């Protein structure tokens, strides 16, 4: 027996910060990186007598995510209090949703080794974030920063439909792409605005009953998701094979050691004493609200990917790179519309030069200096033979930095190829006249000499001869 005899069953719980300017129940800023406790008020500090007032933008963003993930939006959902004591939780309870969440019964399609599969989404609910405790402040004291207290979150809970750690990563990336596309979340795992817990169990292949599940916490990168789940699968299989039993518990992923360790057992599990939040009436979605948001939904990443492959004839590889960033995909479509040439050629410029320069210059796609029309003009210069591919790369780099027109740059740098057939023919005549021996050899059948003659013409034209024109003129004069 080995891991291969077992079927892992995985479900993910994802917390995503909603991109609002203010917090979910008060007017404080959600800006990241402010000095500790700068973004707080009586409400998010949990002063006596304060009451929550719902930020409407939060609902809009959550409904957007819910519909993009094919969820049913409940016309009435209920706020609940999740009660526990912790210094970063000012009221001693978190306002969340429990029995009746805002969104239910959705799905996200992912690619797996066996083809595309729909991963069902059980629910999406709204809640407020807690603050954070700072333990290394010195003086043996712990400090509390409540800037995050009351920051709006969605919790997206999948059904246990994932079967491998790779599928889990695929689902998580797909989910992140959707949320980022919608402008609902910034997808940043490192800053904690997109967080993931995993529920993992294993069962013998062929079995129909799930094994005991274990909750994994503190997984803050895609790589760690894979590592943590794989480690946990191995641990559970080993445990079962050695005659042990998997215990119901919460385990913490230790990134430094690449392993999970027990955080709390079932006996130590919190009893959160959920009950309906009496300070907030039920959340009611007015008629027509969901439909309005649906109309405003952008094309989602998977639909765009399929369209890029189908209508531009791109490879799946190129299409994935382009669609991976909504702004990149949008720019591609704009340039392609202005260009009208072969999409594959444009895609190469995007995946090659553009991404390289963006990375090298740590530049932002939103702040490009050149326009889509200029980009298209550059490609047309190449297609029209006025710029060599290499020269075009130089022009593009300059365009990227200065935003000046590609034609101007090319002329200024003297990179424009000579298109005048008269000038090309004159150069060819001069070269042929200066190299009678070589011409003789060529006519005697030594065809390799052609390359040498081309080189001489190009040299005479200081590299600006259009290679196609030079070739044609040489052949004609040599009598081919």
């Amino acid at each position, binding site marked *: 027996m080995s891991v291969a005899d077992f079927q892992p069953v995985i479900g993910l719980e994802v917390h995503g910060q909603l991109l609002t300017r203010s917090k979910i129940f008060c007017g404080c800023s959600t800006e990241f990186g402010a000095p500790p406790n700068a973004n707080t008020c009586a409400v998010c*500090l949990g002063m006596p*007598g304060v*009451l929550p007032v719902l930020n409407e933008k939060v609902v809009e963003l959550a409904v957007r995510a819910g519909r993009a993930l094919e969820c049913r939006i409940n016309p009435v959902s209920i706020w609940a209090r999740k009660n526990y004591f912790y*210094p970063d939780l*000012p009221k001693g309870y978190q306002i969340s949703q429990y029995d009746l969440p805002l969104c239910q019964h959705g799905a996200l399609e992912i690619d797996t080794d066996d083809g595309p599969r729909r991963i069902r989404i059980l629910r999406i609910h709204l809640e407020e974030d807690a603050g954070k405790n700072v333990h290394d402040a010195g003086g043996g004291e712990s400090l509390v920063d409540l800037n995050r207290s009351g920051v709006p979150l969605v919790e997206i809970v999948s059904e246990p439909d994932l079967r491998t750690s790779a599928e889990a990563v695929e689902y998580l990336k797909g989910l992140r792409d959707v949320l980022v596309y919608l402008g609902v979340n910034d997808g940043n795992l490192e800053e904690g605005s997109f967080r993931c817990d995993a529920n993992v169990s294993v069962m013998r292949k062929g079995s129909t009953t799930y094994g005991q599940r274990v909750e994994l916490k503190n997984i803050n990168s895609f790589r760690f998701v894979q590592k943590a789940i794989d480690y946990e699968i191995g641990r559970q299989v080993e445990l079962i094979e050695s005659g042990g039993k998997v215990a119901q518990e919460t385990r913490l992923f230790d990134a430094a050691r690449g392993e999970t360790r027990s955080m709390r057992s079932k006996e130590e599990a919190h009893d959160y*004493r*959920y*009950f309906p939040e*009496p*300070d907030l009436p039920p959340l009611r979605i007015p008629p027509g609200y969901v439909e309005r948001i649906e109309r405003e939904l952008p094309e989602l990443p998977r639909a765009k990917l399929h369209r890029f492959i189908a209508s531009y004839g791109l490879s799946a590889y190129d299409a994935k790179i382009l669609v991976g960033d909504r702004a990149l995909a949008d720019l591609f479509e704009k340039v392609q519309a202005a260009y009208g040439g072969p999409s594959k050629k444009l895609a190469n410029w995007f995946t090659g030069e553009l991404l390289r320069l963006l990375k090298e210059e740590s530049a932002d796609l939103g702040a490009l200096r050149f326009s889509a029309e200029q980009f298209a003009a550059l490609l047309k210069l190449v297609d029209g033979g006025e710029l060599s591919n290499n020269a075009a790369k130089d022009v593009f780099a300059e365009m990227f930095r200065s935003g000046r027109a590609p034609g101007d740059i090319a002329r200024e740098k003297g990179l424009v190829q000579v298109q005048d057939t008269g000038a090309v023919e004159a150069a060819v005549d001069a070269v042929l006249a200066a190299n009678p021996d070589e011409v003789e050899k060529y006519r005697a059948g030594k065809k390799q000499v052609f390359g040498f003659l081309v080189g001489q013409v190009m040299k005479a034209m200081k590299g600006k001869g259009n290679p196609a024109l030079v070739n044609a003129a040489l052949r004609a004069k040599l009598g081919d």
Partner: protein
Amino acid sequence: MEPTELSMLELGRKLAAGELSSAEVVRACLARVDRLDGRVKAFLRVDREGALAQADAADRRCKDGKRAGLLDGVPVGLKDLFLTEGLPTTAGSRILESFIAPFDATVVKLLRAAGTPILGKLNMDEFAMGSSTENSAYFPTRNPWNLETSPGGSSGGSAAAVSARMVFGALGTDTGGSIRQPAALTGTVGLKPTYGRVSRFGVVAFASSLDQVGPMTRDVPDCAALLQAIAVHDPQDSTSAPVKAPDYLAELETGVRGMKLGLPREYFDLPGMDPEVRSAVEAATRELEKLGAELVPVSLPHTKYALATYYLVAPAEASSNLARYDGVRYGLRVPEKNLLAMYGRTRDKGFGLEVKRRIMLGTYALSAGYYDAYYLKAQKVRTLIKQDFVEAFRTVDAVLSPTSPTPAFRIGEKVSDPLAMYLNDVFTLPCNLAGLPGLSLPCGFTRAGLPIGLQILGRPWDEARVLRIGRTFEREHDFHRRTPPLGAS
């Protein structure tokens, strides 16, 4: 006549006419506090300078012809769970002994806008949990009608201060009777408005779905006027109804002719009801009949479950609402080596016995495995209690009952028997569970000279009618004019 004998509206008229100044009235009140409060012990804190400064400002407005309204310059007091910027707010608890709020509660802002000088903060049962003000962490308040007895609670300090003429009116809160029962026991008028009528923002919470702020005054017109000042929709309280308040004084004097008043069998047949209370309340109902109302027997069959329901719902919410008093950000902290010990010691030292009892009751009722049997079941019964009233209000305009089954009881008499204490609220609890408006006003005195209260319950948002019924009875008597026998000193 002493200025402190006047009602709020009478004083307001004299201030407007320039016959009195707010400053001299505030000084008269302070003199009365100095003379009497050593015995009554209604105040937790007197804000002399603040009140005098506010009185001076009121007098200036008056002089400039810019009075803010009927109550401008009329001194009031606040139960000590309304947050007041810069002035301590303790909620009657040690855990908030050092707490000074950074802002005013919405109702405090509204009072400041109405121009009422705030004389100080009044004693209460800790976190409004109790019916005698004996659960104050500081000292019990005494009933001005008999200093050996309790003024009721939890707004006992407010009731006693109004009754003893130390303030002209006060604000209290009512979660299960905490305005009406002390009003009944001290011969004053108290109204619990419809749930959602008055903002709870900045009011230390006990049980969020039951708590409501209300006026406590000497007579019904004052009660209407003080309600008018605070019955304003507040966007900072999501449970505050966006319903505009009517003019509560407009139809106050128009009588009860043609009204149908319900007499719920269940509220008069209670074993343990004081016979003097019963006969006084019955006499009051007959009198309203003589004044033109029709008395109609009604049934509120689920009333018998109100006490049990209340003692599941209210402690459950309280257990959560009081979790924030953890020693981390404000209030008392008992330093300890680790977090759990700090939490435990802080809350052990900071909370009194009754508060701890209710936190434990509520935590238990919400626990996994018990939630359905207790909290959820209680919510279902709550719905039935509400439906009882909906049914009754199909045929009657209001419901009459005693406010409390007994007159004021002796201090110490019930403090060791929580169940006996809880039974004191049996007539007032259903009103909170159903979210209705309820008024208590004096309807007589026992032979021993203790006040008796009549309770009038109305339809949601029908405070105006409840007040009108109360006023119709009140003006036939001088009960509200009688003053407690406190002597010179």
